[in-house]
């Protein structure tokens, strides 16, 4: 059952030399209860995508296409309509939990405040806050604390609890564990995995860390220069990556190398500037397998019902 359908989404920001095309025709489908990973490096557009899913693109950004969430097209709705969806239908957990929580409110006050659009008594809201904290494995004692008194991991869990207060159908997590220690990260990833089972929440997990994708996601899309260059089930993409960028990304992961290497692989060059996107394949300048025809836009090649890659040589 499709919860989120993003169709031909293009987002551009105003820039000094002209508009910068952060997203260029992104299609994404998320079913209820699914965990989809959006993987990419700096400047690929993944944060823009996360913002678009919440209808929170910055002023000045132009967007085309459709972002249909639970039947509502976020881009076509006025701000009032989008605000009604935030919280109950979609919510956000971002990288920096300190930024998400008000420093002058206690955890309890914050969690109660997030429920402002529900018609509930103060006692009910407080009860739900306690419940939410418990569901992320935190003790009641933290209700009276301020954000700066909590550790990074605790803060992130409070942010997740807050995001889940209104039982959204979709949770957008933008680099939720990047700022955490690896032992804490493991716990937060476990928590996110359990959410699906408990409440049937779908998760769009935006990250640059392939390990996070492997640990948590059902499906993954790989974003490069504002386009989805490969998508599929995590096993498919991991075992048989068909786009050279995906392949290179997997190869660069230091943990992927079985033995100690003298030199670590890198991808030479830089992603293209998006003020004037290249006409053909955006990865061609850095691709070890580029041919003449890569100067023309590559086709989206379907490799299996769930696996596709945007490459002239996907089948070769």
């Amino acid at each position, binding site marked *: 059952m499709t919860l989120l359908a993003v169709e031909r989404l293009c987002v551009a920001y105003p820039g000094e030399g002209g508009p910068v095309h952060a997203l260029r025709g992104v299609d994404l489908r998320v079913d209820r209860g699914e965990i989809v990973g959006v993987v990419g*490096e*700096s*400047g690929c557009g993944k944060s823009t995508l996360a913002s678009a899913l919440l209808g929170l693109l910055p002023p000045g950004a132009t967007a085309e296409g459709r972002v249909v969430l639970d039947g509502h097209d976020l881009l076509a709705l006025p701000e009032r309509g989008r605000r009604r969806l935030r919280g109950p239908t979609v919510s956000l957990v971002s*990288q920096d939990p300190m930024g998400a929580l008000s420093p002058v409110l206690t955890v309890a006050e914050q969690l109660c405040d997030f429920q402002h659009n529900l018609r509930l008594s103060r006692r009910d809201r407080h009860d739900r806050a306690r419940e939410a904290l418990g569901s992320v494995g935190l003790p009641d004692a933290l209700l009276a604390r301020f954000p700066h008194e909590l550790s990074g991991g605790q803060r992130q869990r409070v942010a997740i609890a807050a995001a889940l207060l209104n039982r959204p159908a979709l949770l957008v997590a933008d680099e939720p564990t*990047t700022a955490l220690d690896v032992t804490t990260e493991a716990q937060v990833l476990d928590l996110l995995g359990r959410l699906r089972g408990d409440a049937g929440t779908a998760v769009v997990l935006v990250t640059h860390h392939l390990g996070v994708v492997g640990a948590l996601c059902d499906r993954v899309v790989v974003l490069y220069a504002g386009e989805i260059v490969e998508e599929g089930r995590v096993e498919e993409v991991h075992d048989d990556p068909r786009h050279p960028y995906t392949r290179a990304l997997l190869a660069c992961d230091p943990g992927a190398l079985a033995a100690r290497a003298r030199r670590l692989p890198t991808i030479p060059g*830089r*992603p293209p*500037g998006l003020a004037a996107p290249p006409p053909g394949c955006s990865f061609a300048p850095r691709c070890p397998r580029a041919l003449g025809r890569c100067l023309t836009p590559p086709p989206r090649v379907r490799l299996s019902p769930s696996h596709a890659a945007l490459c002239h040589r996907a089948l070769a």
Partner: protein
Amino acid sequence: MSSAAEAPAGPAAAPPRTALRALLRDPLGAFGLAVVVLFVLMALLAPWVAPQDPLALDVRDKLAPPSWDHWAGTDQLGRDLLSRLVWGARVALGVALASVGVAALLGLLLGLLAGYGPRWLDALLVLVLDGVSALPLIMFALAVITVAGPGIPTLVGVIAAVSVPGYARLIRAQTLALRQAPFVEAERAMGASPARIALVHLLPNVVGPLVIVASMDIPVVVMLEAGLSYLNFGVRPPTPSWGNILQDGYASLREAPWMVALAGLPLVLCTLGFTFLGESLRDALDPRLRGTLR
């Protein structure tokens, strides 16, 4: 977080050329610049610009209204008013630049010492500086001048002394903030001495706001000097100062009402000019505000 492979990191410090252009685009800033240049030239070239000798007496022709001989008229001792005003610019700007300059230099030194030196020195300096800034300015000025006698050096000294704490505090705050900066630690790790760090690495980074604040203080000091001279505690006659010319004008208000207006005009104009210039300069040099000036 992300490596931002191509984008330069951090806000760009505004280079002087674009700052100047931004300044000129602002009408008030351009006006201020023009006025300041005018007065600076007037002060520098006073001996050549002034039509007559400001000290030349012509008692028969006293309190004469503006005429072709005397464009601004004469004062109560028959001296050409315009020439006195032109020379007054020299006094006003001379005192202002000297006292602000001395105060800024001293403030810079003390601020760096307090901010980067040992903690006990900081505590001591802060105590002293707070003490000085607790003194009411005019009273302090009057007291010193009563003891030491009026005159330009005393004036410059007094004004500088009361201005130092403000500058020192500013520099100290900036220095304290930068003390923990990674590049300072990097220099320490390379073995740089505290003196080198303070002079080569901290000073250029803290001096910016000081320049702006100091330039905004110039009109204040011009007013201050005029005020003290008006009260006969500043520049002594017969040396012309806009302040004592105003005093003369006030004394002759009945017979020569134009004197007060004409004496006040350069004072007001000069102060406004410096103020507009200073504000425009501050806006132009602040990289965060540059976008709004477009």
